[in-house]
């Protein structure tokens, strides 16, 4: 979390907090039946009305941010959402928006889609993973073949967050000229979305089959020459959202575990009086501060479009995702048996953290990327 917020930012934050308190409860998440969705379109619409899909979109495209620095506001929101493991398409919609905004002016026009997403009238999802695959957006097996008047897409995607609920998919595909991205309506003929088991109860995933799906030339996002850069922007937003929501969740669970340490007695003394435990709290507090530091530094770099933004998002993701696990598992340990029961909140955060660790590059992936970026 940023050390100081403006009055506008605080208002933005508290409006988000109120909506989340009204629309969302961890208990509901815990009691979801198989097949039941963790979120609905109405609730997302209410978030969009508060600007949840607007921060990184320029005003001329219907967006706008309270601080004038959209990425800062985005991470502020992500922290709020993460602190309650909020369901909803916040990450995929903003990632797709990052791509559409970055592509704006370089290929077919997607202004109408941007406006519909900002307003919450449409929901979009990034279809970038493929079954059995790891993080390698540049190596899509989904094929896009040029037709007389557009493209034909064939192949399968998976781990598509919000894919079941989305109106639009942003699909990475390999064309004869290299990687490209296509906006594909889920209602298009040949598109089959089906639910996929997900570790994170709050984030439904989908498998998507593309069977001779035909789209027009205006479905392309950007141009072959700019695709790599656009995908990089999308990745940066995905990683920032992940890191910020992890920070928000960690802050909450650390506070809960602190309180437990003071309230829980063993042998007539509070847990917080045992040096072996105190030292673990100290480590956790240190890692938490480090997580905030690196997330904030990455957000500043992305906001500024700084040349080291690719490095700094990888630094943040590789670090925060790893330490989130260390901290949360230690919170479980300090809670004792109750920490591994279904009724406790901790596993909801641990599910989110484990899922975040896995998606958009694991810490290992990002460490190798850091070596690449350092020209080792």
């Amino acid at each position, binding site marked *: 979390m940023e050390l100081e917020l403006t009055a506008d930012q605080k208002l933005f934050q508290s409006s988000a907090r109120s909506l989340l308190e009204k629309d969302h409860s961890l208990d509901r998440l815990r009691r979801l039946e198989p097949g039941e969705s963790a979120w609905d379109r109405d609730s997302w619409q209410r978030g969009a009305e508060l600007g949840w899909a607007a921060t990184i979109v320029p005003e001329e495209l219907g967006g706008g941010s309270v601080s004038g620095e959209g990425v800062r506001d985005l991470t502020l929101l992500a922290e709020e959402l993460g602190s309650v493991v909020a369901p909803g398409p916040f990450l995929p919609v903003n990632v797709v928006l990052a791509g559409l905004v970055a592509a704006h002016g370089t290929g077919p026009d997607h202004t109408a889609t941007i406006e519909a997403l900002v307003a919450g009238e449409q929901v979009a999802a990034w279809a970038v993973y493929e079954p059995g695959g790891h993080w390698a957006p540049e190596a899509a097996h989904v094929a896009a073949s040029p037709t007389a008047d557009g493209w034909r897409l064939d192949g399968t995607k998976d781990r598509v967050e919000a894919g079941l609920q989305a109106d639009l998919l942003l699909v990475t595909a390999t064309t004869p000229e290299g990687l490209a991205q296509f906006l594909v309506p889920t209602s298009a003929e040949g598109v089959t979305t089906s639910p996929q088991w997900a*570790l994170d109860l709050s984030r439904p995933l989908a498998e998507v089959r593309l069977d001779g799906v035909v789209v027009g030339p205006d479905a392309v996002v950007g141009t072959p020459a700019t695709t790599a850069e656009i995908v990089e922007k999308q990745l940066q937003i995905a990683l920032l959202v992940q890191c910020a929501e992890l920070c928000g969740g960690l802050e909450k669970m650390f506070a809960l575990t602190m309180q437990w340490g003071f*309230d*829980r007695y063993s042998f007539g003394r509070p847990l917080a009086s045992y040096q072996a435990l105190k030292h673990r709290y100290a480590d956790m507090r240190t890692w938490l501060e480090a997580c905030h530091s690196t997330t904030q530094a990455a957000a500043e770099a992305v906001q500024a479009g700084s040349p080291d933004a690719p490095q700094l998002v990888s630094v943040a993701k590789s670090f925060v995702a790893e330490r989130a696990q260390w901290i949360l598992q230690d919170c479980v340990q300090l809670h004792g048996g109750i920490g591994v029961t279904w009724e406790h909140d901790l596993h909801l955060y641990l599910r989110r953290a484990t899922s975040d660790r*896995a998606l958009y590059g*694991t810490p290992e992936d990002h460490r190798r990327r850091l070596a690449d970026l350092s020209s080792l």
Partner: protein
Amino acid sequence: MTTAETETVESFRLRARAWLAENMPRLDADAPLPTLGDDDHEWVRARELQKLLHAGGFAGICFPREYGGLGLSPAHQRAFTEETAGYEMPVQLNIPTFSIVAATLLDMGSEEQKRERISAAIRGDEVLCQFLSEPSGGSDLAGLLTRAELDGDTWILNGQKTWSTSAYAADWGLCLARTNWDVPKHRGLTMFLIPTEAPGLHMNRVKMVNGSREFCEEFFTDVQLPASAVVGEVNNGWAVASRQLFHERNAVGGGSPYVSGIAGRPRALGGQSLFTVARATGRAAEPGVRERVGEWVALEAVKNQMVSRVSRAIGSGALPPPAASLLRLFHAEAAQRGTDLAMDIAGAQIAAGVGTDEGVTGRAGVSYLSRQGASLGGGSSEMARNQISERLLGMPREPAADRDIPFNQVKRGRV
């Protein structure tokens, strides 16, 4: 039975091998992994298998003959266990029935309790459990609040227990309750042997993060018990509980002579080996993945080698009984490192299953959620470290704010 009459280990092993081949059902290595939380049929099956072992004369190998066992040595048990590889076995009965509850009754029970309960368990007629932990208790077992009061000859029990492993499948349980509040905590406890069907005992199964429902919580409301339900002496229940804890550490660490048959697939990894995970991800050829699988292979091997060495050393007196905590602590470390390695290997696939099924990598993810189980169940790793430093290394004990203070004057927390 005198030494002269004892069958040699090798002869016993050969006889067991032949009998198993003829009588015991083979394990189906390709059977799908069981769904956690739904295991009633497994308990029915465990009793059937135990009856089969008993009929064949291979049940209760290290229990004395007068209580229904065979009176043989740990070496006989080890040989038998080695021979059971590949066969179905009633491994559910190993912990806590045989290695904790029956073992404790053997040490501390009345003649009647030993004769009735141990032999019924060996025959496959009864399953045993423990009612020890309480919601307010954590590591401080002796600080429990469940109370038993004498009304004439009858004990009246009130209170709440939790973390009772497979109590829902059990017939009898050992229950520790406070019978004197005016003395320091260890001196006011009494152990009772309670039928799980006793009127006033209400039981729920606790759902865990991985979907397992092996633990129960119990509510005792005016449960009535006869004087013969006391195990050991009144107000000396801590001595009984200490034996239980010793047997528990031993059993969880893998050093108990009352465990028969090889435990099923590793629980810590949701029943999957890292080979399975590595193959499922298609990354088995990556050097980093191979390194991690190799690390897991080594840790599993060291864990077993350590069990064998330390339990032998405790048996011979080369190490004192608290050395069982070494096994307890290392077991947790190895199990947790295993789940971490599985997560590393599963990589981007841990977040999702295949279709609506959790699949191999999704199961690795679910296992990771209960990673700390290994350092919480059977006493926390922190308590094991206290034991090792204080009892084995002789370091000064932690200052306890409840030592030598009447229990009704001890400070309690808000949770």
